[in-house]
């Protein structure tokens, strides 16, 4: 009892001192610089998605640093961005908690989320406060189908990605003289892989491909020898895997070992095929694998600079980094045009954005119902230990090697 009373007195004293200091100091502090604009950055940096969360965090941090270094938001007298970071701990509940905390701290907007479930829950929570929310990666199309006025997705969603994946594949195949006709689909048996496989199985036959077999695998898989055996007996021209990191690596290694050599491996939104770690650790197994995924625009020189800074910080580079950097820049542009950190005005400015100063292989930004219509994935290919963009040609820095074997 006594202890509680003491603690309370101390807390009150502490609070009182701070309040006093604030009343005494403002004329000096406030006069010098405009009030900073608080920006919520939400990423899962612990738990199962920690690796991706870190990729995103460094991108957002560098984005904020660059905006501040360039003089902040000019329309607001050079107001600086101040990051309020939230760890979504790889689950939607924690994402919502962090949104509530950010709301308490008075952020003007939130950027990030990474995984679809986190983006869904966090943007919903932000919508209650009319808080602008820019989704970085989350590909589930449900995110933009709920009619939330506050939610904007800068990157392409599932529908755009799969459509582009099929278009790109058809055109890469045509350009090479149609060497591939038969396809085997290998997918993880969750929502992501099954949905993708189903779509492929209905769409690809329309373009003259024959689906030989659709093979579902669990996550985690202990062993993919049997899958590889089936692939060897089917002998498809193309193998299309939609699996997570561990299984993709296991499949690629087992295929290499069992000498299954299709004319191409073409993955879609894959967990490993455009991940530098896979390429570095298993250069032989990863070689010539193609992926249709988020990636930066290799022709934009700003990416090379950003990448150098990421390397200098001792961090790894992935598409999340330029994507979050671009999302922060998109937000800064909107606040600049809104001329205010008022939430309703930011939402209005985002909705009418034509922002083109980003690092992604997208056209100018144009939001329709929260989805950026300028966004598109690209087809990448691992060539001699480097991930190259091979399609579309407007953004490519290499030609596709296809078929890999005659």
């Amino acid at each position: 009892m006594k202890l509680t009373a003491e603690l309370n007195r101390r807390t009150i004293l502490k609070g009182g001192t701070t309040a006093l200091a604030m009343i005494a100091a403002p004329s000096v502090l406030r006069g010098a610089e405009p009030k900073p604009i608080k920006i919520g950055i939400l990423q899962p940096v612990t738990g199962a998605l920690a690796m991706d969360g870190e990729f995103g965090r460094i991108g957002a941090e560098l984005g904020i640093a660059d905006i501040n270094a360039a003089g902040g938001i000019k329309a607001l007298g050079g107001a600086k961005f101040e990051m309020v970071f939230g760890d979504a701990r790889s689950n939607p509940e924690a994402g919502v908690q962090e949104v509530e905390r950010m709301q308490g701290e008075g952020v003007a907007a939130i950027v990030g989320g990474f995984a679809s479930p986190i983006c869904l829950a966090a943007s919903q929570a932000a919508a209650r406060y009319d808080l602008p929310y820019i989704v970085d990666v989350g590909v589930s199309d449900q995110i933009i189908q709920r009619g939330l006025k506050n939610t904007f997705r800068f990157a392409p969603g599932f529908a755009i990605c799969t459509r582009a994946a099929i278009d790109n594949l058809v055109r890469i195949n045509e350009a090479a003289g149609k060497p591939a006709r038969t396809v085997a689909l290998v997918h993880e048996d969750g929502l992501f892989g099954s949905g993708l496989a189903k779509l492929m199985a209905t769409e690809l036959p329309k373009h003259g491909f024959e689906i030989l077999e659709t093979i579902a695998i669990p996550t985690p898989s202990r062993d993919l020898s049997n899958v590889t055996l089936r692939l060897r007996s089917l002998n498809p021209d193309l193998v299309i895997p939609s699996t997570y990191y561990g299984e993709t690596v296991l499949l690629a290694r087992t295929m290499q070992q069992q000498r299954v050599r299709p004319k191409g491996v073409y993955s879609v939104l894959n967990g490993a095929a455009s991940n530098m770690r896979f390429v570095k650790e298993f250069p032989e197994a990863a070689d010539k694998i193609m992926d249709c995924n988020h990636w930066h625009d290799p022709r934009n020189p700003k990416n090379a600079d950003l990448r150098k800074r990421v390397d200098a910080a001792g961090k790894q580079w992935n598409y999340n980094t330029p994507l979050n950097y671009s999302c922060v820049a998109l937000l800064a542009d909107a606040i600049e045009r809104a001329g205010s950190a008022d939430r309703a005005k930011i939402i209005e400015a985002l909705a009418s954005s034509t922002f083109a100063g980003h690092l992604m292989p997208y056209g100018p930004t144009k939001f329709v119902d929260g989805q950026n219509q300028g966004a598109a994935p690209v087809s990448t290919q691992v060539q001699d230990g480097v991930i190259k963009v091979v399609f579309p040609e407007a953004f490519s820095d290499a030609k596709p090697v296809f078929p890999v074997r005659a």
Partner: protein
Amino acid sequence: MYSPAIVAEAMLNGLLTGAVYALIALGLTLVYGVLHIINFAHGAFLTCAMFAVWAAHSVLGLDPYLAILPLTLIFFAIGYGVQRFVIGPASHGDDGNILLVTLGLSIVIENALLAVFRSDTRSLSTDYSFNVVELGPLLISQARLFGLAGALVVTGLLWLLLARTDTGKAIRAVAKEKLGASLVGIDVRHVYAVTFGIGCATLAVAACLLMPTFYVNPRVGGAFVLVAFTIVVLGGMGSIPGALAGGLVIGVVESLCGLFLGESLGQIGIFLIFILVLLFRPTGLFGARA
């Protein structure tokens, strides 16, 4: 539906995978047979061992097969220490407590690994990871053949240890009659700890045999330990030949189910066997005890 060559190769794959399953089940069955506890931390210890192999390779440059000897000794010591100073004292002689202590241990270990190694999936690459042995039309992974050989050698050694040495006699005595064993001067707590240590040591061997071709993340142990429990039940709780035979059978069943029903349903066969054994032969294939 599939050519005989493919079915044969799938069965062979199953045998090779099953051998490693057997190795993992071996430790589990030994600990059950002697201590009469179901060690829920078995999977967590396996994950630990796999991370140890990975770290030994990527930090010290130690080949996974050369790491077998030092890691076996280290994991024996860890197992001995954990049983002697954590599980034993914390259980206060109650088997129900032990169950919860091992469950708690598994949660602690898994989260400690998560804190240290993060949740990334890691794998290591050796020059021979992709080597195959050609047997007519069959391509057999060399690493898996080593796995089979390793499992057979460890089972043989363990059997020799239990049948021929004084330690083995003491372990068997404690397993049969704890009170009687302590009356004739056997240090029961020491034997418990030795048994637990051996259980962990087999996991170290299994980890060294797995890592050249497999990956590790903090949750990976769970994928193996569920299968190991099934093998222990199938082979007979506490039976060493049972664990070996059970492992091989489960491996083949899983492989064939995977081939014919699809990988996602491959596990159905395993758990069907689990239920059937519990219904019709609860003592398992080699279980003598009623």
